[in-house]
């Protein structure tokens, strides 16, 4: 079975340093991905980020996370992207932030869950 969540490789996700007025530093934050039978849970370290700094977007099977945090003279941009399996319901993502860790919960679609079919005796 293929994994429900795979890392999306694109040029944007590669570390790059942009020199702007406020020194912009792009960071690939550490992430954990866990799964159980109902859902996939993604944890991403974004120290210093508040909920208004974080943007989570799911589009065309790609989940993009960006958090922009100003720290002193630098603007730290945390960026991560994941490719989502079709079995996951991207419209039902739940995102929360605690102690600088972003937590994303993605449930499997109801039709993707194993279903037991009862056999009737005729």
């Amino acid at each position, binding site marked *: 079975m293929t*994994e*429900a*969540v795979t*890392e999306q490789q694109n040029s944007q996700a590669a*570390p790059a*340093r942009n020199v702007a007025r406020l020194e912009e*530093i*792009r*960071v*690939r*934050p*550490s*992430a*954990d*991905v*866990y*799964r*159980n039978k109902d859902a*996939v*849970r993604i*944890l991403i*370290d*974004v*120290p*210093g*980020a*508040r909920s208004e700094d974080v943007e989570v977007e799911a589009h065309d099977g790609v989940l993009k996370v960006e958090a922009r945090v100003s*720290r*002193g003279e630098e603007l*730290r941009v945390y960026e991560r992207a994941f490719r989502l399996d079709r079995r996951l319901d991207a419209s039902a993502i739940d995102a929360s*932030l605690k*102690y*600088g*860790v972003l937590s994303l919960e993605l449930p499997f679609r109801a039709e993707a869950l194993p279903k037991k079919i009862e056999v009737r005796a005729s």
Partner: protein
Amino acid sequence: MVQIRTPWIFQEMLDGMDRMSRCPSWAYGGVEALNNRSAGSLNVTEKTASLQLDFPGVSEEDVNISLESNRIKIEAKRKDARVDSEDVVLRERSFGEFSREYKLPWPVAAEGVQARLEDGVLTLTLERNPDSAPRRIEVKTA
């Protein structure tokens, strides 16, 4: 383009070193490797000092700060985030204990220490013990 691969044994050694200094990678937030500057920053002036450390996923009760003259020790613990019913798909965030001691050029005033943990960032502000400030001594004539 030449690609340099790190042999796995080297990787393992680095991991061991990490454990020896008891500074797991989570305390750096992965920033250090990218821009060669630690996510922890210490600023010292003549009378004050401020220290910032990235502690994502650490709660207040898991941070311990102790002070002894001009040494300040910070200990923290990050718990495993996985629940028993879950399988691991990807694991980059390490967990465990962090311990680091900073030596300041002057003794710290115990009542002037302030620590705040906000959004996964620990900020410490320290003040110099006023008794230790250099004093000018007047030379009297007999």
